[in-house]
């Protein structure tokens, strides 16, 4: 029982952390190498792609998707997709995909003469699933060492922590005030039933034994 409880708790927290890590924005300092557009047929990984741009046809099985190729400061490549989130989830309300593609294209550079940019994105890059993080915005910076403080993430996580703590505290108070006394009463009821049951059994056994010793 101990392991089952901890399995649930750990699974719950893993899911919560994964959800926030996927949905909250992150910032990468990168050098944009190229931008392109590719036809994607949505298969098993379709939940990691957003909907079509607002105004376009819905529910198509494939679509042209913008991509941005970049190299981060450790010289490893990172490919971002560039899609509208529209009115759907996550609530970034991103409509300016084509504009962003133009801005990103404008910041392309070569390794010899790099133009560094900060790319704000959400989502995961997983080669095995062929999923890409979604770029939200791009802005040019002077050099690869820029100090970025994720203010929005700090605010959101603080609010979530405060709300969860408030709910948890109220749940504990409610439990102590209402549920625990009731459970004690039920426990006492079980004890009393158990006593009377063993009394009954005692009597039956004595009567049975009275037949044995003949």
């Amino acid at each position, binding site marked *: 029982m101990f392991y089952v409880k901890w399995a649930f708790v750990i699974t719950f927290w893993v899911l919560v952390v994964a959800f926030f890590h996927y949905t909250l924005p992150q910032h990468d300092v990168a050098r944009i190498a190229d931008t392109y557009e590719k036809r994607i047929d949505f298969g098993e990984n379709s939940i990691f792609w957003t909907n079509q741009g607002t105004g376009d046809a819905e529910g198509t099985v494939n679509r042209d998707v913008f991509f941005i190729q970049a190299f981060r400061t450790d010289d490893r490549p990172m490919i971002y997709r560039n899609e509208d989130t529209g009115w759907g989830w996550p609530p*970034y*309300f*991103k409509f300016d995909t084509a*504009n962003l593609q133009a801005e990103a294209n404008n910041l392309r550079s070569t390794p010899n003469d790099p133009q560094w940019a900060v790319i704000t994105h959400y989502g995961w890059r997983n080669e095995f699933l062929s999923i890409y993080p979604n770029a939200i915005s791009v802005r040019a910076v002077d050099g690869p060492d820029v100090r970025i403080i994720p203010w929005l993430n700090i605010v959101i996580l603080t609010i979530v922590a405060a709300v969860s703590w408030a709910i948890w505290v109220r749940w504990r108070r409610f439990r102590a005030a209402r549920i625990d006394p009731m459970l004690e009463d039920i426990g006492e009821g079980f004890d009393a039933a158990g006593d009377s049951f063993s009394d009954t059994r005692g009597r039956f056994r004595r009567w049975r034994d009275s037949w044995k010793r003949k």
Partner: protein
Amino acid sequence: MLALARLLIIGFVVLTVIYLSLSLYSRSVRRGKLEREWDEEIHTGDRDAFIEEGMRAYDGSLRKKLILGVYVLPLVTVTIIIYLTNFH
């Protein structure tokens, strides 16, 4: 536009549920305060009439109107997000 309509309808329903819950909670807190005030401080006159008058004053008060902020706040937040994401 259909996605926007869907978002607005679902948002309206959810916010209305929150608004009603908050409104009822606020009324019950106000009623509790009025009852306690009468029980501890006043003790004279008609208890029910005092409470009814207090509740009518509450109905016209600013505090009750502020609960409509439940509708306003998400709209403002979404507008700000749209501005920051799309128009820098």
